[in-house]
């Protein structure tokens, strides 16, 4: 296969060797972790060790870790589960969330609003994509009937890190359950869930070098929620379904790798990110760098670069870079391959045109200076061609 430059690690990142090894090794084992016999016990042993490992690494209790099929399920479980539970017990029907959530949170909330009568407060964000804490405070001033507040730890498109510790504190003071989607934050920012004290935290394995199809909701054991998947009740009656021991073991190994190497990784990524941004700004002078320009871990994800190229369509740029053996993303969700104008950029006050002119590069610890330089040298030509193609499109009529 041709040598490609892969800069789409926020979409998914290759499995780290330790995770792959643990995953493969466990796949040779046999048994249902719920079975009472010896074969089952052996699998259960592996699952529980993985649970303990993850809990220890993230500063939480093993009983808080609920394994799921990934980020999407964890987000659905947190948002719907907390909403349904609160409505059933107290008639609460309010949801507070940001206007820049991933679709795995956004769409369940839109569904609750359209179909389940939820009253939603959308927290606005500033031009770098950080929520307005004054609006949050004003909203929580009357916390009655708020079933759940969900604000992501770090944004998957523009990389902006939210002040989750203060948000968690504000929710706690108001007595409102707080959920945060930490899928993009894990392994990239320091993460101590004991210190955060959120009620529910979403994690996904394949974003941190573990296998696909597994993740966790770290859920305060004292908090009840209504399950999304009913069945055997394997995970504390909160989530049903036979546990995938090999994937869970691989996930835990990936979390270990992610958490232990976080600081060093962040340093490496920020250095490369600044090299990429600097290179592109020099070669495409009218480029717009979106998101927080800060280099601190509470400002921006270290491996995220999000750029707008005025006059270009992001999907054409992506196509041209694809042909130049560079994998990146427009950052936003697709409808059958058609990029929607990103709701994140729109919430940040950008025009639909600018939203459509964007590309996201997401780096990993395996990214090299040569990868970054390949993008810097490919972009000017691609931008020029995409502009011509856009112009061609506007001319004909």
């Amino acid at each position, binding site marked *: 296969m041709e040598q490609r430059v892969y800069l789409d690690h926020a979409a998914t990142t290759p499995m780290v060797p330790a995770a792959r090894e643990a995953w493969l090794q466990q796949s040779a084992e046999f048994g249902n972790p719920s079975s009472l016999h010896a074969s089952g016990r052996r699998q259960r042993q592996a699952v529980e060790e993985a649970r303990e490992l993850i809990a220890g690494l993230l500063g939480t209790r093993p009983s808080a870790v609920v394994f799921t099929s990934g980020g999407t399920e964890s987000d659905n479980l947190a948002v719907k589960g907390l909403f349904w539970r609160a409505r059933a017990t107290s008639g609460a029907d309010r949801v507070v*969330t940001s*206007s*820049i959530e991933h*679709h795995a949170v*956004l*769409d369940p*909330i*839109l569904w609750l*609003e*359209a179909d389940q009568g939820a009253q*939603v407060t*959308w927290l606005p964000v500033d031009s770098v994509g950080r929520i307005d804490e004054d609006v949050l405070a004003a909203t929580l001033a009357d916390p009655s009937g708020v079933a759940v507040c969900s604000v992501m730890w770090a944004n998957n498109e523009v990389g902006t890190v939210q002040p989750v510790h203060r948000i968690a504190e504000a929710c706690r003071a108001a007595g409102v359950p707080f959920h945060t989607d930490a899928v993009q934050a894990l392994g990239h920012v320091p993460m101590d869930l004991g210190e955060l004290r959120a009620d529910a935290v979403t994690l996904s394995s394949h974003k941190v070098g573990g296998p696909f199809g597994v993740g966790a909701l770290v859920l305060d054991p004292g908090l009840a929620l209504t399950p999304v998947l009913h069945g055997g009740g394997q995970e504390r009656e909160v989530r049903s379904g036979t546990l995938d021991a090999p994937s869970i073991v691989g996930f835990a190994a990936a979390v270990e790798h992610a958490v232990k190497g976080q600081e060093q990784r962040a340093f490496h990524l920020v250095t490369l990110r600044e090299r990429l941004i600097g290179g592109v700004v020099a070669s495409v002078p009218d480029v717009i760098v979106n998101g927080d320009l800060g280099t601190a871990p509470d400002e921006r994800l270290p491996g995220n670069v999000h750029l707008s190229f005025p006059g270009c369509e992001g*999907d*054409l740029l992506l*196509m*041209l870079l*694809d*042909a130049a053996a560079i994998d990146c993303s427009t950052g936003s*969700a*697709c*409808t*059958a*391959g*058609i*990029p*929607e104008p990103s*709701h994140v950029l*729109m*919430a940040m006050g950008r025009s639909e045109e600018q939203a459509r002119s964007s590309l996201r590069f997401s780096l990993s610890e395996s990214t090299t200076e040569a990868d970054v330089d390949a993008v810097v040298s490919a972009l000017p030509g691609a931008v020029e*061609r*995409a502009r*011509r*193609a856009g*112009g*061609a*499109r506007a*001319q*004909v*009529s």
Partner: protein
Amino acid sequence: MRVLAAMSGGVDSSVAAARLVDAGHEVVGVHLALAAKSSGGASTAGPASARASRGCCTLDDARDARRVADRLGIPFYVWDMSERFRRDVVDDFLDEHRLGRTPNPCIRCNERIKFAAVLDRAIAMDFDAVATGHYAQVVAGPHGPELHRGVDPAKDQSYVLGVLQRSQLERVLLPIGGDDKATIRAEAQRRAFAVAQKPDSHDICFIPDGDTASFVLARLGGAPGTIVEAGTGATLGTHRGVATYTIGQRRGLDLRTPAPDGAPRYVVAKDVATATVTVGPAELLDVDLLEAGAVTWTGLPLDAPVDLQVQVRAHGEAVAARIDASGARLRVELATPVRGVACGQSVVVYDGTRVVGSGTIEATSRVARA
């Protein structure tokens, strides 16, 4: 060559793309998303979800096309052309109907989207050509590329490509026009494409139920009026709007009084200004003189009047005609009358299998009496 293959998700464009890959071209597949998106999320203040725009049919077609592209191992993208399509094809279609004419939206789409917006974009992105799964052929001729009929008479689509001009033809590949449909289907089967048995599309793609009258009525609103008898001027009934009738239409007239001689009656004329639909016997539909504007030349422009053939509808017969292009418009004297020709239809001029040019019919009349 670097070729951009327009992939609809149907059998024909799938085989077309496959043949280009086999021929050693560097092929990139593009599905054109043309269907209008339904707008508006449910949310009041929040971000609208993409969910609202996740349509049905186009999504399946895009998926089918992607599956074929993946099997061929070529890159595949979806280009959102829905805005352009709405403006240049759907709105044009409605505008034409509003004026009482009968447009062909497939021709507009080829003229303004597939072989204009898409082709220009492709060239700007350094592609050498755009390929489609149309049943027609581009053949090298003494004066450059020529457009010819597809070899399958039942499938020939040269008529809807009649608006293409030389400069476009130089950049167009039509890889399947030299075969008949059965051969193409068999080839799709042999290549194990899941779309091999997909039914042909016949209707106007943005009116999937085929009910053009309701589509037009819903968007233009009704302008009720009367249906009158040709010659006598007697009122025979009422209608919901002139735009919902086409010249030559027989069914759905709902006339209360039958013709005195019991012969079937057809729509023979429409007058938007007075909201009048005129019906009469079939003979009144026969015309032998056409005048057409918006003339395009696929081959060398004609200067002196010549005897050639013309076709006035997608699946119509070619008719011998004398073509006079000396004025701004095309004057087409038909050797034998043609029945039911409406303004707005395209007339495509052929020299045997070769497309010479086209025009949009602006006036029809009956000169010779049988």
